[in-house]
């Protein structure tokens, strides 16, 4: 049943949470600046609570079931993270408090910078970026500034593999680079011949996702890095898929120059219906001076009597400030909590179980579904959601039918280099019974595609709404539920 909007629920004169009257002598409000009307909703508190509770029940979520959304790492978000981030000692600190009053925050940030650098094999890290996409922007700014500082002004091209996320070309374009698409070879690796041909003295760098969006660790990783470095370019690592490599591989040790993590993927901070994320960026030694402002340093190592102290400093050649204050601090507390509970062994266990789960699903599903790159995968893999014998059935239909089996669909139609892609990432926190139930559903759907194709075409059947008319949304362009329109009143 449809839940009315907050404007439909509103009744003139009702109040929700109200406040006391001022107890100070009153001052006049300047009438020339006073707004004429303020038609905000008027709903009592219970009405508001029921409204949002009912809305929540229209969502699918990790806490409800399996969410194998490729490239998004929808793992369990430990509840302890929510508790620690809300400790008043953290949550009630103002970002502009004097440094001597926030030594706890600064210690946490300093330690997390070091942990994140250590996990990836880098020299240092910044916690400022608000999201993976902003991390990419920071990384690209660092590459641009590095070349500029070296007088290398003709380096204008950035190579981007054809399997990359759309943010890679968009980020490099925002920095004025010319993104050049790099093809993959038949095993899903960067095509080394094409790479060599595209490398010259106009090369600024490469944006290299590894494992890539096919879920494959590039077999030529060392070669790719060597070729780009020899041409004078820098290697940007898109760390979106780092969940597969925790304690397994340090990208920085292998020559990646700059890389971002997504704390909301790898380090278990919740996705929140689309954010907030957090996209720390790690750099190798030669790039540490370029990190954004502010950066946390140890200002005094302390002694037997006094603990060390911490403060902010602007790195010498910094690319500058990219958002207000110091990053998504609340997300940093969550990631710190997670890493503190896992340590080296726990982190490696995560990567191992993520890869084990993905390979298990891949083994069970290949054959029934086409696996275009048939080799051992990392944390995810990509199937074709299409069969030649039932050409009317598409990846979208399979995705929608999965909802009837109470699963969130895989990512579909991405990466672009796989026809009718279904990108499946189970994550390490799912047990084998859940994986088996998902396999059963996928096999059943493959059967239904032949026997009852209309079941797929008309899916989903049990969801709060059915397939939505996206063309109508793009044509009508209704972005507001206020004021209540005439046809709704009648």
């Amino acid at each position: 049943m449809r839940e009315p909007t907050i404007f439909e629920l509103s009744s003139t004169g009702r109040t929700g949470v109200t406040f006391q009257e001022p107890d100070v002598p009153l001052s006049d409000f300047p009438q020339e600046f006073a707004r004429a009307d303020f038609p905000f909703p008027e709903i009592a508190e219970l009405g508001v609570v029921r409204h949002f509770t009912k809305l929540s029940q229209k969502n699918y979520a990790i806490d409800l079931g399996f969410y194998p959304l490729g490239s998004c790492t929808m793992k369990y978000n430990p509840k302890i993270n929510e508790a620690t981030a809300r400790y008043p000692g953290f949550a009630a600190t103002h970002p502009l408090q004097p440094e001597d009053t926030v030594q706890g925050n600064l210690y946490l940030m300093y330690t997390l910078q070091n942990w994140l650098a250590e996990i990836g094999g880098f020299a240092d890290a910044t916690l400022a970026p608000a999201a993976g996409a902003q991390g990419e922007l920071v990384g690209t700014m660092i590459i641009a500034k590095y070349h500029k500082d070296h007088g290398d002004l003709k380096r204008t091209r950035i190579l981007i593999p054809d399997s990359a996320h759309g943010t890679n070309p968009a980020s490099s374009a925002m920095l004025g680079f010319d993104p050049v698409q790099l093809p993959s070879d038949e095993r899903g690796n960067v095509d080394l011949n094409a790479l060599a041909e595209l490398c010259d003295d106009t090369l600024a760098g490469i944006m290299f996702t590894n494992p890539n969006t096919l879920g494959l660790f590039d077999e030529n990783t060392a070669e790719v890095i060597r070729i780009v470095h020899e041409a004078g370019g820098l290697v940007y690592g898109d760390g979106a898929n780092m969940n597969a490599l925790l304690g397994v591989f340090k990208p920085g040790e292998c020559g990646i120059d700059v890389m971002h993590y997504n704390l909301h993927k790898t380090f278990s901070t919740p996705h929140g219906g689309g954010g907030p994320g957090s996209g720390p960026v790690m750099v190798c030694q030669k790039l540490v001076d370029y990190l954004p402002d502010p950066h946390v340093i140890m200002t005094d190592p302390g002694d037997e009597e006094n603990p060390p102290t911490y403060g902010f400093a602007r790195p010498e050649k910094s690319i500058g400030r990219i958002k207000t204050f110091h990053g998504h601090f609340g997300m940093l507390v969550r990631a710190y909590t997670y890493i503190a509970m896992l340590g080296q062994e726990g982190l490696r266990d995560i990567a191992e179980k993520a890869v084990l789960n993905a390979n298990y699903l891949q083994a069970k599903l290949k054959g029934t579904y086409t696996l275009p790159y048939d080799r051992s995968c990392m944390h995810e893999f990509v199937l074709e959601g299409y069969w030649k014998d039932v050409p009317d059935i598409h990846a979208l239909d399979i995705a929608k039918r999965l909802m009837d089996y109470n699963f969130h669909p895989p990512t579909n139609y991405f990466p672009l280099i796989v026809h009718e892609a279904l990108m499946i990432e189970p994550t390490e926190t799912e047990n084998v019974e859940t994986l088996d139930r998902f396999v059963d559903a996928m096999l059943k759907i493959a059967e239904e595609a032949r026997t009852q194709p209309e079941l797929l075409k008309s899916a989903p059947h049990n969801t709060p709404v059915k397939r939505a008319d996206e063309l109508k949304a793009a044509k009508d362009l209704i972005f507001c539920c206020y004021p209540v329109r005439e046809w709704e009143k009648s």
Partner: protein
Amino acid sequence: MFTPHTKADVEAMLKTIGVEKVEDLFKVVPDKNRFPDLNLPLPLSEMQAATELDSIASANATTRDFISFLGAGAYQHYIPAAVDNLLQRGEFYTAYTPYQPEISQGTLQAIFEFQSLVSLLTGMDVSNASHYDGATAAAEAVILAYSQFRGKRPKVLLSRAINPQYREVIRGYMQANDAISIVGDDPETGIEPDLQKLIDQIDLDTCLVMVQYPDFFGRIIDYAPLIEAAHAQGALVAVVANPTALALLTPPGEIGADIVVGEGQPLGIPLSYGGPYLGFFAVKNALLRKISGRLVGETVDTQGELAYVLTLTAREQHIRREKASSNICSNQGLMTLAATIYMTLLGKTGFQQVANLCYQNAHYAANVVQEVPGFKLPFKSTPFFHEFVVQANQNVPELLAHLQDHGILGGYDLNQDYPELEGCLLMAVTEMISREDIDYLTDVLSEVKHA
């Protein structure tokens, strides 16, 4: 702990895969780099982690320990209990971006309601789902305006009374664009409330004029003449607005703003040492297709039932790749929800009460502070909302340290960003500051020895 695999599970799974041990799945990783040591502390149990984090948090003194007059872009407001209670429902916070509308109507409708509330608050036609924060939203406004004229109008005019961090972020975002000229915030143009020197710089090369409302110093300024002058030259106007103030102030949309952006933190989001917060971004219909970020639109499903979907996605990076105007993806979803619940819960009455409490408390504070010998209000003749500038006859860092010793965070030292405002600090007063707090402040200020 967070991985559920038993030994027997692992063995059975490996058998299905056809390898002997888990390590075999990683053979593709170069031998010499495989399974490195991580220099990390030994793992903690949940109980130990809770204790350790509590002890780190306890090393801070917070706005609960101090009486805090800090604002300057982040504000201490009361957050009703129901906000976090609803926010912590797993169906909201463990969901992802609502790509699959059939099983994401909760998130989609909440964003749609957020868009509606922001449009109403700002007086604009269309709001997007969010940006990272107020500063990055302001940077995206510059990108929008620059691309609106296809780079043919290379000049962006920023008022010097815009939050200095916002101006830094705007320049940071545009650092690779050598053609753009971001000016107007120099000491010569200044911070006079009549803005005449800024208005004089608007010309046919100007793509955007940006001002803040109330401005960084808390002042409420009539921007109608500036907007008229900008439109006369064909330039767009962006207003950086404080959402609490908009409960009482004429919305920027009504005085002609083309773009309104701002920091949504005051809408039920904890200070949390600077983030995560929420940038809001609203435009007039004419700019609808230029807006970056996610947009939720209304439609119907195959049964004719009302439904919400992400729409106009063809503008975005995952479709347009390098031709997209921004690389922004979904962001701040949960903060959007917090703001929506906050605004709905307070509603018409509560939200205006909060704004009025801020206004009244701040005016009481300003009045009594200026009565303390040695302190005055340099912008006294201009109306203000809940922030104001105090000029002290002495070194501000020393004054702030003195106040801190007496349990008061006195405000923001303006001299860091404004050499012309030596001896000045910016004080914010919200509904969280009581009359007693303010009287105590004046007691402490009265004891200060002046140079």
